[in-house]
């Protein structure tokens, strides 16, 4: 839900029509909320469904022949993983479509599929790059916070390290590790929160970019050819 709210805020900012977080939340907890859940359920049902179907076939084959089952299982995994990956990227913008364009669950999946269209590799590359960049930001910010939240753990650990000259017995270390839980949880929580804030930002920007490309493509197709010699006046799609 927070992802929808952040997507709405970013989308409104991109259109130079800022919106408050309260308004974004109100908008989120409307029908969008159900559509968002719906697209998530459909997406994961389809992905897991494919995996379960393959599993069932493997199980049936297993009843007939173990060797056949083994061969099919290997082939299925090799074929299934790229397929799932392909579909995941194709449906990546479904939630954004719900948040930004008020699509229903089914429509959002179709829209995302359509937008990624011929730009699969480009989308995949940019997503990988942006994930690396955002993870770097998240780790830089969350490192001192995690360190601070684990201060007591580190203090005890260093005290023990100093007392034993580095040779801590495994049992004491295991006991100590139990106390690290809350600190790790806070750190993970901060990372997840930052990720929740950062991911929709670039997802919405990419969604707008893909939407503009789609509109541009449609406009070019509809435009009648007036002057063949005007080939130098091409539309530059590069952003930089």
């Amino acid at each position, binding site marked *: 839900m927070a992802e929808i709210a952040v997507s709405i805020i970013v989308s409104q900012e991109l259109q130079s029509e800022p919106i408050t977080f309260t308004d974004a939340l109100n908008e989120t907890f409307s029908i969008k909320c159900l559509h968002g859940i719906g697209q998530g359920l459909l997406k994961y049902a389809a992905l897991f469904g494919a995996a379960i179907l393959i599993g069932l076939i493997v199980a049936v084959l297993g009843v007939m022949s173990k060797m056949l089952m083994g061969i099919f299982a290997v082939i299925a995994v090799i074929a299934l993983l790229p397929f799932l990956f392909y579909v995941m990227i194709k449906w990546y913008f479904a939630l954004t479509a719900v948040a930004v364009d008020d699509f229903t669950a089914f429509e959002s999946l179709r829209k995302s599929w359509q937008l990624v269209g011929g730009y699969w590799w480009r989308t995949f590359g940019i997503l990988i790059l942006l994930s690396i960049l955002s993870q770097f930001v998240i780790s830089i910010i969350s490192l001192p916070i995690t360190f601070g939240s684990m201060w007591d753990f580190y203090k005890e650990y260093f005290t023990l390290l100093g007392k034993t*000259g580095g040779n801590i017995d495994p049992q004491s270390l295991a006991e100590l590790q139990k106390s690290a839980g809350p600190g790790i949880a806070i750190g993970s929580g901060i990372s997840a929160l930052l990720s929740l804030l950062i991911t929709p930002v670039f997802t919405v920007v990419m969604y707008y970019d893909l939407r503009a490309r789609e509109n541009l493509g449609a406009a070019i197709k509809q435009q009648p050819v007036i002057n063949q010699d005007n080939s130098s006046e091409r539309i530059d799609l590069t952003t930089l």
Partner: protein
Amino acid sequence: METFAGQSTHTNPPQEFDGSWEKAHRSITAVACIGLLIIGVLYAYAQGFLTAVFVFFNGMGELRGSGGKDFIGRLTHTMTVLKSPMRISVFISQFLFMLVPTLWIIKRWHTTKIFSYVRVSSVSFLELGVAVAAIVCFIPVSGGISDFLTKLLNVPDFLAQINAQIFTSYSIEELLWLVVVVCITPALCEEVLFRGYFQRTLERTLGMKSLLITGIVFGLYHMQPLNLISLSLLGCLFGYFFYRSKSLLPGIAAHFVNNLLAVFSLYKTPDGNVIFEAFEFEITFLGGAAALLLTCGLLFLYHEITQKNFYAA
């Protein structure tokens, strides 16, 4: 004035800004963040990769060798083996993956007049001298903060010493190599990236706030939680010199001297005794407070002597 969408609503940028980003009137704040982020990621991964490569080709055999059975022995042995590849990788990656991409980004996105953009301009010896003096006076403060946190956390001495191995030298040749790797290289590359590019670009939209933001980012970027406060304060000081003098040189000089004193303080005889004993002193609270007062006085002096340059710019 600019919108989140990145479309600046201001009029045409000055003519010398002929880069692609400038011509497209995109957000200046965004470009500073994107540029820093790209270079930060590139540098972090490249440096890690280079260290791994150097360790693989030079130190793998030694790394496998024993350092004794106890924890301290093994840790010391690992650090001794790793320090040389780490120094080489830092040296190469700072130039190749920090300085070069920064200059490339400035040229491509902002202007072909790179040196003018990062403000490589001459300053008086007085300005340089006061900046260096301020940093020297600030060392007990930054060192005191780090020491206080280290003691508060009960970090054992042996661990701190092992950690400092990378900056420790045992011969004049090693000392000179460390001066190149730890003093000259970061003073040049980090200053060009953080002050010359990031702060300079942010300054165009955020003014003096850029100094504070760059200082904090400088501290965060080092990924040393115990030194975060002192590094951020140091970053703010370097930023202040840059902001007031409108030149990169005072920051470079101050950064160089700060690192140089750290390297000198860890110059030891082969049996582990510190050579420059003057650097071995306990920082008391009163001493730290006095150093802070002195730093403030010198910063005020710096403020006064840079009035002319500041307002002329």
